[in-house]
């Protein structure tokens, strides 16, 4: 008689896990490293409040990171056992830290007036956050390993609902945003979605594909120690960001496209000008005055929609100053000071099909086909003149946030009938043959000619 052995059970088909002692050893070493970081912080007198740097920050962060890594390894060695998870939880939570409740009435302080004791330095508060989340997650994981399978499935499904509710809120967050999305986002979803970077709305090329934006930056230098208004010693250099020939350096052009994304962030405007009425009147008056300057310094008003685009506060108060500081740093030269950084945001208008073909729908006549790189298709908007520290030098500058036109004026040659003649003359005589570039006039520095922009 043949005796058939019973089929192997599911647990027989799983590789035997590592012994708990080994897991615990690795885990506790990890916890020990984080505790060492904690003790080093106390012993070295690292600040317990605020975000000031301290010499021990580097070693502490390294120790804590290593400790968390080892604790995480312990989890991976035997994921079904709560011991590894508890070590990871301990490492995470010690790294995150502990402190007393802030005194009543001080909860709104940016840096609460209480001592915070942590393995990760307080100056590295974002890394503390990561440790905290990791520790909390590991604690949940430890509980997880003790739950029956059905309870695990139920918890997972609850998380799935929470996760996709968050994604749905991100998807519906672009304007017009439903009230429910606003409430969900601000009360429930945003910490999780921001932490995990799952807050994208996925609305690509919508509502319409739009034009790209360039930055035209003028860096003005002066010799170190010279007076600010010493014209004779002024040197200025233009930069275009992004510039394909300079920035397309990796095979798939990521460095170029990243810069396109950077410049696109500047294109965020106030939906309507919210300022008080007196400023609006003064803004218009200043602009009018700039259009009547004498000595060839006038910047005429050329119809455009819109002529005045004030950026929102994120752009005007944060992005532009940061960009200016970066540019002053990146283009610093030995022996010279950066006197100013002038930034123009240039939207590159897309040609319509009719324009590209050379057809005027209003008259039904053929006109010169538009060259997609024609200078007048660039819509520059002056974003400000900044010093090397990112301070806006003059917020009452007449052209601030105004369109600075590049146009075919009466003083230029009329556009020809054929594109070939246009390109020939551009090559021969430069863009000034057909266009007046008031950007160069406003910046008081001639922009370099870019033939074809190919």
């Amino acid at each position, binding site marked *: 008689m043949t005796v058939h*052995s019973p089929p192997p059970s599911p647990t*027989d*088909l799983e*590789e*035997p896990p590592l012994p708990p002692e080994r897991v615990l050893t690795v885990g506790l070493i990890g916890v020990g490293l984080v505790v060492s970081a904690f003790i080093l912080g106390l012993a070295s007198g690292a600040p317990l409040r605020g*975000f000031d740097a301290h010499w021990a*920050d580097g070693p502490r962060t390294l120790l804590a990171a290593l400790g968390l890594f080892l604790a995480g390894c312990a989890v*991976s060695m035997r994921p079904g056992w709560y011991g590894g998870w508890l070590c990871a939880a301990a490492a995470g939570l010690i790294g995150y830290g502990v402190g007393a409740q802030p005194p009543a009435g001080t*909860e*709104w302080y*940016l840096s609460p007036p209480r001592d915070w004791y942590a393995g990760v330095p307080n100056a590295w508060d*974002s890394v503390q*956050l*990561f440790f905290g989340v990791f520790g909390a997650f590991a604690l949940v994981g430890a509980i997880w390993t003790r739950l029956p399978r059905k309870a695990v499935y139920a918890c997972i*499904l609850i998380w799935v609902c929470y996760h996709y509710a968050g*994604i749905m809120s991100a998807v519906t967050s672009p304007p017009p945003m439903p009230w429910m999305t606003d*409430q969900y986002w*601000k009360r429930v979803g945003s910490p999780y979605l*921001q*932490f995990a*970077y*799952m807050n*994208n709305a*996925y*609305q690509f*090329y*919508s*509502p319409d594909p739009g*034009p*790209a934006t360039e930055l035209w930056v003028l860096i003005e230098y002066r010799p170190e120690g010279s007076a600010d208004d010493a014209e004779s010693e002024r040197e200025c250099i233009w930069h275009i960001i992004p510039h*394909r020939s300079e920035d397309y*350096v*990796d095979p*798939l052009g*990521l*460095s170029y496209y*990243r810069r396109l*994304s*950077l410049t696109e962030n500047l294109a965020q405007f106030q939906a309507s000008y*919210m*300022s*008080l009425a007196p*400023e609006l009147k003064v803004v218009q008056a200043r602009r009018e005055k700039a259009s009547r300057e004498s000595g060839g310094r006038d910047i005429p008003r050329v119809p455009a929609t819109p002529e005045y685009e004030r950026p929102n506060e994120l752009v*005007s*108060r*944060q*992005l532009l*100053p*940061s960009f200016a*500081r*970066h540019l002053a740093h990146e283009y610093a030269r030995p022996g010279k000071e950066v006197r100013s950084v002038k930034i123009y945001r240039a939207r*590159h208008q*897309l*040609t319509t*099909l009719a324009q590209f073909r050379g057809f005027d729908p209003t008259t039904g006549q053929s006109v010169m086909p538009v060259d*997609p790189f024609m200078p007048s298709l660039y819509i520059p908007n002056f974003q400000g003149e900044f010093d090397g520290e990112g301070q*806006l030098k003059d*917020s*009452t500058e007449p052209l601030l946030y105004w369109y600075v036109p590049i146009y075919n004026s009466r003083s230029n040659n009329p556009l020809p009938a054929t594109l070939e003649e246009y390109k020939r003359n551009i090559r021969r005589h430069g863009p000034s043959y057909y266009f007046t570039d008031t950007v160069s006039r406003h910046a008081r520095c001639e922009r370099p000619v870019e033939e074809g922009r*190919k």
Partner: protein
Amino acid sequence: MTDQRTGFLGAVGRFFFSPTDPTTLGLMRIMTGLIVLYTHAAYSLDLSNFFGPNAWWDQQQGNLQRREMPHPRTPLGWEVPQATIRVDEMPHRRSAEIEFMRNLPNDPAARQAKLRYLKTLFSRTTSSEDRSYRDFSAGIFLINSAARVSDDQVVQVRNMLKAEKFDDKNSPVTFPQFVHDMSPQERQALWDDVLAFNTTLPPDGVKQEYILAWLEYYVQHQRMRLYQFLAGELKENGQDMSLPADQGERAEVLDYLDTWGLDTRQIGTHKGVSNFSVWLHLTDPSAMWAVHIIALVVFLLFTLGLYTRVTSVLAWALSLNYIHRSQMILFGQDTMQTILMTYLVIGPSGAALSLDALRKRYRAALAVMGAGGRSVPWATAALAGPQPSWLANFAVRMVQINFCFIYFSSGFSKLKGTSWWEHSAAWLVMANPEFGLLRYQAYEWLLRVLVESRFLMALIAGSVTMFTLATEIGLPFLIWTRLRPVMVIFSTLLHFGIAIMMGLTVFGLYMYTLVLCYFPAKLIRDRVGSAPGSGRKMTVKYDGRDRTAVRKAGLVRALDIAGQVTFVDAATGKEADRTIRLTDPDGKQVVGSDLYRSALRDLVLLRPVRYVGLIPGVWPLVNVWFGR
């Protein structure tokens, strides 16, 4: 795992938790890892520009936003939140207003004395009638005028105000009408209040004008609230919400107001963004490069599938470090990268097509070969291939659902735009100079030829537009039907088009990786892996009594994923023999380095890397490592 078919979770449980082959996840891991490696290697060219302390979005700004950015909650009911204070947006006006508030006396009683005129003016001009408006403007103008009168004129005005019937025709300043209705004592007190208020104004005439304009144009029904804020009388829910008396608190409130335009106390703890990144704190270039190189190594290990349970989590965390630091340079591909990394962490992405899988096979081979004929169920199962896993199925399902969300949102949101309805969207993509191919003269020439035919262009634009909309809107629904292969092909074509026409190649690669989630694991295993039974047959004889022999034979067995080799435990003689013998497909018996050469040549898994054997020094190393 088997009880969930009849368990209470029913169809949902089967959908999410049925065990499945993790090979799909394995291929997704490899592709994701390669793209992530490329993306972050490309960062090497711009490490300081994007992540350094003086990056485009510098550390100072990044940390400021991360710690302070307000996200005030709107009430759950119908009430409208009232700001304690509103300041102007333009920097020159706002700074004057903030400076004015900074210089007000600390003591609320002293402030109330200085601001008494404002209280009188605001309280007497609350009506919406024209007269009230005129009085208010006159009241503001009075402050302006009073700041410019001489000492003699101050006395002159005081004397005029003493008269029972007040007439300001010959007065150097003009008073609002309500002053005429006051008693002489009230008028004089008001004049003293005006002069007291003037002492709070800056000496600079332009700044004075900004402050007065701010007061004049402040929203009428909020003026008393402004006074209460400035005078130290504003309370909300028992909390003092006026301009703080304490210098430290005042500085914090005004600094926040200057930066963000909001009262930090009203924001409370709803500040900041839940971002984390070492790049927000690292400043030393050497340390930055060390972290960056470690990150690249981790991504490489993740791609290879080595210690994937650890490297997947590390890779996910490291990739988020870059993303959180540099939000200004991100675009769609980074979103896709994060989606993939997140779900690959959740699922057993290292269970197949990985070095981990090979290591497991090796451990299983050792267990089987060293068992002396005993059954080792887990090892036998492991050598048969990656085990079906409910976690793998769950991760794949999450990717599938998220993919549907992406297409759903992308497709339906396009319907908000007119260019998609009128079919000009395709043209706008084709004719985009920065993204597209217009920089090539040949492409421009081709477009100019095509546009001569309006019908042809309309056909092309319409087809592309309709194809895009049909794919994006249709996929979330049709991908779950028999039309799945069609939708996968459409999706592939769509992203191919985007890669070519927009230059967004990396984005396209990520989308291809995502769309793999709809591929059957068996198809991937057959095409990318090695089907069992393929390749030339060989035999390996080893002595199971010798650990070294078992180890060497185990290695060959681990690499024999197609089952080409028959392993024979041919223990003979009294002494255990550490030499293993391979009979190659031509019948020749080889040992030592010749054995490994044969394995390298004939084993299906190693065939792609057989040229490694041509590198000098490889075989001596192998001999040292494994012995003869």
